[in-house]
Every structure is written in structure tokens, then in C-alpha cells.
């Protein structure tokens, strides 16, 4: 019979067992991952799948340093305060070797600063903020994703080629939109000094008044529009703009709008001819992408989004860094990350020693519509290293130590 004493004894035994745990030698290397899963699920669900795929592949190939890897994920709630807390939890309670992840700029920057204070390696996966490697850059933080500046710079050649004089700008009113706008104005003005910026609309993130914005832009009679909207804001802007005839005879450039996360919901209303950065997953024929695509589709019965590539490449970077360092010592890991090269679905990338930015590129092209779906046409791949400012400029922006 199960008496209370027996129950207690059993529980005690279980607790004791769990404390001893498996032998430490075979324990996997834990990598701490944190992200705003519930705030940006459209991007981060595929991202998480990318992580799972990468972990599986690394472990199938024998792991690193003779051990398997394990990614321990936490939700940071999109709040820097929470992010710093779960980062601490990952390090001190889970015993994570170092940190990866984050999505919004303010969370990424807070965790970067935390990593610097805690002297722990942090590979920022998605935050686009230029500050993370430049103005606020630090010795312990590296960033995978093609930054706001880089993606904006990639669109500049097409913008210059069109020789449009009157530009209108619309952007979500926070760090990403602000720096995209600043970079675009600066870069275009350098190449085309007679350019005029005739209207500028800063819209609250997720709450654009699309009709009024479209009307205000149309009133300025622009020849071209530069937008950094994404998500629901983009969908609303596209619909209102099309109904109101805003885009007739006007060229539109939109950062990120070619990413499946934001392009696919638009379906048959995808705006034909817009210049965008994105990810034409179905048309890439490089062996590294085909391998990734096949493995992803086999595992998840779904096509990858850009988030999937980011999650996958982040874990691959982490694994390669451990391999190169040959140890989990933070100093050695950081040294290994500097100049680390590895293969990703987008080709070879390098984490630049000068500013810790990876040279991961992006695809630039135009939106087309086929069978009621948006896709990227006339696309080309731009290597990240060709979209960065000169070393002298980088050194000027980045703090010395």
C-alpha cells in the first residue's frame, strides 16, 4: 500500500537521483537562446524551426568537442528588463555556454550591453539596429543578420538608376524605421545631390492610419517612395495605396517586403514592381541552399521563411565558433568569432574582425505576382561585404574598447 511515508521516501529518492543526474562528461553543451517569441510569432516560429534543424544536423555530424549541443530557449516578452533576467537565468542556472538570439533592437542592445558587463559571448541573430555593432558595439557581441544600413545600401543602386527627383518617405516610428530613413537619405543624397525629400510620415508601429498616410503622400506628388513598413502596417499601406491610386506612375522601394513573412500574406494584392529586399526561397539553386531547403521541407513539411535561415545560421555560427575555439572559454570563443567563416544557406559568411558584423548578404529584386501569389523577380544576391561603409568610417563609429 502506498503510505505517506513511502511516498515521501520515493520522492526523496527521485529528487536525489535528479540532483546527481547523468555523468557530466556526456552532457550536451548548452547554448542559451532568448527571443520575443510571443511578440513576433510570424517571424520567430519559422526561426525556431531553423534552430531545431541546425541542432539536429550538428548533432548528427557528431556534435562539437565530442559533445552534443542543446539550445535552451526562453521568451523575453519583448522587454529588455525581462531579457536581461532570462539571459542571467540561462547562464547561471542552465549553465549555458553563451547567448544567442533576440529580435527587436532595444532588446538586442540591452542583451549586448549585458554580455559586455558579464563578459560572455553574444551572437545577436535578428536585431537590425546598426548601433549593435557600431555606436554601441562591444567586444563580446557579434551580429549575424544583414543590418538596416546594409539592406538600405543594397537598394541604393536601383534608386539612383531611376533618377527620380521627388522622394516621399514612410517608416515605422522606432529605431529600425528611423535609421533606415536616415541611411537612405544620406546615401541617396551622396549619389544624387539634387534629390528632394518632399514628405516624411512616421507612423506608430502596428497602428498606421493607412488611408490618411497614403493621401498625405499623394498630396506631396512624389516620383518615388521609400518605405520601411512591414507586417500589418505594410499590408494596410499596400491596400489603401492601391485603392487610392498612390502607386500609379510612382516607383516604390520597401525594405524587407520581399521576405516571405511579410510578402506571402499580401497574396494577389502583392504590389507589382516594388523594389524590395527579401528571400526568393523557391528560386535559389545554389547547392548550399538546396541542401537546406530539402532538409527543412523534409522535416517540417513547410517551406522556409527568412526567419528559418536566420535561426539555422545562428546555431551553425555558434557551433562553428565552439569548434574553432576548441573550448568554452569566453576569451577563446570571442577570439574564434573574430574572422570566423562558415557556410550558410546564403553562401559563405565571415564575422568581420573590425566590427563583429557578419557579411551575410540579402536578395534584392522586384515584386511580381503569379497565380495569386507574390514572388521576387529580377532578383540578385548582394554580398553583405559590398554593402558596408569603409573601414575608416566604421572605426569612427565604433567605440575603441
Amino acid at each position: 500500500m502506498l503510505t505517506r511515508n513511502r511516498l515521501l521516501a520515493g520522492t526523496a529518492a527521485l529528487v536525489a537521483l535528479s540532483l546527481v543526474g547523468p555523468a557530466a562528461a556526456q552532457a550536451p553543451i548548452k547554448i542559451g537562446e532568448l527571443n520575443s517569441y510571443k511578440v513576433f510569432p510570424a517571424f520567430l516560429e519559422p526561426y525556431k524551426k531553423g534552430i531545431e534543424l541546425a541542432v539536429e544536423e550538428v548533432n548528427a555530424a557528431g556534435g562539437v568537442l565530442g559533445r552534443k549541443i542543446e539550445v535552451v530557449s526562453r521568451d523575453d516578452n519583448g522587454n529588455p528588463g525581462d531579457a536581461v533576467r532570462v539571459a542571467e537565468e540561462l547562464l547561471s542556472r542552465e549553465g549555458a555556454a553563451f547567448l544567442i538570439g533576440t529580435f527587436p533592437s532595444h532588446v538586442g542592445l540591452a542583451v549586448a550591453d549585458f554580455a559586455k558587463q558579464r563578459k560572455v559571448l553574444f551572437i545577436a541573430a535578428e536585431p537590425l539596429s546598426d548601433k549593435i555593432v557600431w555606436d554601441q558595439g562591444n567586444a563580446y557581441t557579434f551580429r549575424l543578420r544583414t543590418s538596416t544600413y546594409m539592406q538600405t545600401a543594397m537598394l541604393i543602386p536601383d534608386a539612383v538608376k531611376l533618377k527620380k527627383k521627388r522622394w516621399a518617405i514612410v517608416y515605422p516610428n522606432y529605431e529600425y524605421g528611423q535609421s533606415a530613413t536616415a541611411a537612405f537619405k544620406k546615401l541617396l543624397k551622396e549619389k544624387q545631390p539634387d534629390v528632394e525629400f518632399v514628405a516624411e510620415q512616421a507612423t506608430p508601429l502596428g497602428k498606421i492610419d493607412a488611408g490618411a498616410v497614403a493621401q498625405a503622400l499623394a498630396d506631396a506628388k512624389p516620383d518615388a517612395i521609400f518605405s520601411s513598413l512591414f507586417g500589418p502596417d505594410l499590408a494596410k499601406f499596400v491596400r489603401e495605396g492601391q485603392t487610392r491610386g498612390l502607386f500609379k506612375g510612382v516607383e516604390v522601394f520597401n525594405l524587407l517586403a520581399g521576405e516571405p513573412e511579410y510578402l506571402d500574406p499580401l497574396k494577389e494584392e502583392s504590389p507589382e514592381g516594388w523594389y524590395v529586399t527579401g528571400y526568393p526561397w523557391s528560386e535559389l539553386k545554389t547547392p548550399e541552399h538546396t541542401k537546406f531547403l530539402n532538409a527543412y521541407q523534409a522535416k517540417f513539411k513547410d517551406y522556409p521563411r527568412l526567419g528559418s535561415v536566420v535561426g539555422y545560421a545562428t546555431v551553425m555560427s555558434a557551433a562553428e565558433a565552439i569548434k574553432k575555439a576548441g573550448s568554452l572559454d569566453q576569451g577563446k570563443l570571442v577570439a574564434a568569432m573574430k574572422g570566423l567563416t562558415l557556410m550558410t544557406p546564403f553562401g559563405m559568411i565571415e564575422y568581420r574582425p573590425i566590427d563583429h558584423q557578419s557579411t551575410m548578404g540579402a536578395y534584392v529584386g522586384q515584386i511580381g505576382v503569379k497565380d495569386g501569389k507574390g514572388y521576387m523577380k529580377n532578383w540578385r544576391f548582394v554580398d553583405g561585404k559590398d554593402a558596408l561603409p569603409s573601414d575608416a568610417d566604421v572605426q569612427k563609429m565604433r567605440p575603441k574598447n
Partner: protein
Amino acid sequence: MTLASILIQLLNGLAAAASLFLVSAGLSLIFGVTRIVNFAHGSLYMLGLYGAYSLIEFFGRTPLGFWGAVVLAALAVGLVGVLIEVLVLRRIYRAPELFQLLATFAVVLVIKDIALFTWGAEDLVGPRAPGLSMAVEIMGRRIPAYDLLLIAIGPVVLALLWLLLTRTRWGALVRAATQDREMVGALGVDQAKLFTSVFFVGSVLAGLGGALQIPREPANLELDLAIIADAFVVTVVGGLGSIGGAFLAAIIIGVAKAFCIGIGTVTWFGFEISFSKLTLVVEFLIMALVLVVRPYGLLGKPQAAQRAAEPAPRLQVPSWTFALVWLALLALVPLVADRYTTILLTDIVCFALFSVSLHFIMGPAGMVSFGHAAYFGIGAYAAGLLMKRFGLPMEAALLLAPLVAGLFAIVYGWFCVRLSGVYLAMLTLAFAQISWSIVFQWDSMTGGSNGVFGVWPSAWLADKTTYYYLALVLCGAGIVFLWRVLFSPFGYALRAGRDSPLRAEAIGIDLRGFQWAAFVLVGALAGLAGAVYAFSKGSISPSSISIAQSTDGLIMVLLGGVETLTGPVVGAAIFTWLRDVVARNTEFWRAVMGGVILLIVLLFPQGLVGGLKALVARWREQRA
């Protein structure tokens, strides 16, 4: 702006106002009759959009399919509202004021995860309205035909509601209950039925407001919180319980936003002013302005004096031994627990002071604050900026920060104490949002949307355990101080003012002065909590001053129990700990969190500490 663009922006504003009006009218009805601050109203709006999307896909994109889907979605959302009322809210109508807010907050969490589970994470762009997909040319500009329809729908719904409220027996009951619900109950009206029916109508309006947006707005998971603040603003600006007021307020806010966008960037006297950036906060500016001039909104009437059903129970001050034992236990934790426990406890200690300061103002002082994060955030920013921008030593910044928060409380409080009830609460929210938007925009000073980084404590405090002791001492002292104040003559005067303002003034208490002083006091201590929090994190972002932070404070106070002193501390501990544990292990942690809160709400309608106290009292009675 030319004449034509002024006219077009006016139409844009009116079209945007239509849905806002429907949602707000529902909120206003529900609040008027049940006095429930229904956080879940935005979730009902979101369900309206998702429901309409799915039904249109099911029926097909024909005019009948479209309009059938819109109506059906609205009715279905009405049923969801009825479910919420019958299953949850009906059980807690007798709980202390505002407790129902906690339940509706839990419902928000649950509905959000249900929507994520059912419809997935990707935005769902709905079809255009069949037959109305084109644009109409007005003065050389094209405006969507559907927008014109929306502009017409607003007044039609207003007229229907007016007929319903003035020409039917149900309407008469609703108006009577809005004025004096005890009296309506005393006259033999079945309140349960009345409340359920009001919830149905209110929810249908929210659902309809959402469903009608389907050609203009993709269904997505952020809609609930995006609309709820605006809906409250409209309700309050119009005057609580006034449908006509809600209509007027929706139009004012819709049109004001459209004009901010239409005006764009202008240069005045060499200064560039971007009106489009004002859209971040314009509704709160309008609300602050309206409330300062008209304390009951545009068309609202002074609320009838509420008969307190039962006087609030006596406050028991925790004994010194009790406090010291707890302090000693907390001081011992770092010796036995791991590093992370200490860090989590530091968070809890900061939030405990934040929540106790909020409790002081909303419980004993009787002034509910929906914008308490203003002082928490200002304290945090003051600490960070004094150190980073003005070069003060960290210790000085930490000690000066509460004074800065107090200074802001002097200004904000002066306006707020002139109001009462929900109007007061919404004015505090307006000030919090105005502060938030300034912090969010002032890049050169506050770091804008990113915030301030590198706000780490001095070397002798850098160790997490040492810092925990500092937090424990500072926040503990703050909490004890606030509790002591409640039992000083000042505290008694505040409580007298809450229980009977007229009598308090008759015996010569300068109530407004006392309330103002209370505002400043709690502002400063919330600022202290914020400053301690900032240095424990190393960075500060606008989230620390956001609506979410204010809501967290309310949840902590209500979870613990607003009628006890220790409740807010327990609430802060449980809420912070729960979030840490639940978010770690589950994919749908929001639904789990909401479920746990709902369970607590239903089991302990007095809050955790209040409920436990009642249990102990009953047990003692049985033994006696």
C-alpha cells in the same frame, strides 16, 4: 494643405472613427451598467476580425457571403462575451472594486493564445468588400467606396442604439442601472439577466467593429491591445455611459489623427515640427485636455455617489516581528540559493515597492491610477540619465531619482486630484502615455525607442548579492515607510477622504491637499523602485514607462488583494515568479498564465492574501 486635401483627410478621419465608435460604444455600455473595466474588449474586437476572415473564406467572396460573415462574426463574438460574463465575471461581482479587471486581463491572455493556436502567427489579409472595392473620385482625389460606407454606418448604429436605449424597456433598465444599479436591483429587476444581455450587446458591437475592419486591416495578434487603449480614451473623452459622447469623441480623435498626418512636417520659426510623429500620442493629449477642462468628459454627467455596500475592512499593520522575520529570511536567501534566485528576488523586491506604492494610492487613498508606470519609468530614466548624461556618481543618481519622479508627481498630481473615479484613473494614464511618448521620441536625451545602456552600479555594488541587499534595504524601507504613513494622521485623513469625502471636508480636512501630497509621496517611492530596477538591469527602455508596466502593477495589487497591506507584496512576488516559471516551460505560456490567474480570481475573490485571511478567520470561528 489645400482645401481638397483637408476635405479628404476629414473623410479619412470619419472612416477611421466608425469602428472606433462601435467598439467604444460597447465598452461604454458595459462599463455604465456593470462598472467593469473590461480589458478583454479589445480581444473581442480582434476575434471579430478573425471570425469574419474565416467565415468569408467559408461562405465565399460574394456580397451575401461577405455581409453574412460580418453579421455572423459579430453575433458569435457576442456569444463569447456572454460566455465570459456567465463563466467568470458573474462569480465575482461582489469582489472589491476593480477586481474584475484582473479577470478580464487573464481573459486577454487566454484569447490571444487561442487565436494564435487557431489562426496561426501569419497576418491574415482579408478580402475587399464585394461591390465596394473601387474608389470614388472626390475633388480629384480617390477615396475607397468602402470608407464612405463606414462613414454612414457610424450614425446608423448610433441611431439604432439611441432607439434601443430610449424606446425599449430594456433600454430604460440599462439607463436606470447606469445611474443607480442598486436601486434597479432593489426594484426587483433580475440583474443577472440584465448584465448578461448588456454584455451580449456590448460584445456584438466590439465584434461588429472588428468584422467591419476586415477590408481595411489584416487580422493579426496585436489588434487587441492596439485598440483597447484608444477605446478607453474615446469612452472617457465622450463621458462614461454616454453613447452620443462616444460618437463625438471617436470623430474628434479620428479626425485629429488624420489631420496630424495630413499636415505632416512643417517649419515654424526655423523649428521643424513633425505632426505625423504626434500620432503616437495625440489621443492621450486630447484626453488630458478634455479632462482638465471637463472632469466628466464631453457629454458625461457627474457619477452618482456610490453607496459603499460594505465599508472596506480594517487595515491591519503587520507587526514589527513579522516584518523583521521576513526581512531576516530574505536576507538569508543568497546564502542558500543559487545566483539566479537572488536576481529574481531583486526583481521581486523592486516590483513589491512599485506595487505597494500603487496600492497606497488606489486602496487607502482611493485614487485608482492606470498610469503608475510613469513614476517607475521616470525614476528609472532619471537614475540612468543623471549618471550617463550628467556624470553624477551612481549612488547620487540612485538617491536623486525618486526626487525627480516626485517632481513629476507634483505636476501630474495637481491635475489628477481634481477628478475622481475612472476619470482620474484615465488622466493618470494620459500623463503616463505623454511621458512615454516624450521618452520614446527624444533620441538625443533618452535614446529614443532603444533606451539608455550601460547603467551599471558602482564597483562595490556590482556583485549580484550585494546589489540584492541594497535593493532589499531600499525597497524594504520604502514599503515599511508607506505602511507606517497609513497609520499616521495623514493616512487616516486619506482614508476618511476615500470613505466619505463630504464628511472629511466638513471636519476640516483639506482633502485635495492631502491627496496631492499622497500622489507625490507614492510617485517618489515608485521612482525609487524604478531606479533600483534600472541599475539591476544595466539598461532602461521605454517599456519601463509603458501601459504594460502600469498594467503589471495593477495585476500585482489585485492578485494579492487590494484590501490588505501585505497583498501587494505577495501579488508582486507571485506574479513575477509565475511569469518566470510559466514562460520557461511552455509554448502557450500566456494561456497558462491567464488560466492560473483566472483560477486564483475564482477561488480567491478577495485576492490571495484577502482570501487566505478569510479562510483563517472561518477556521478560527469553527474552532471557537
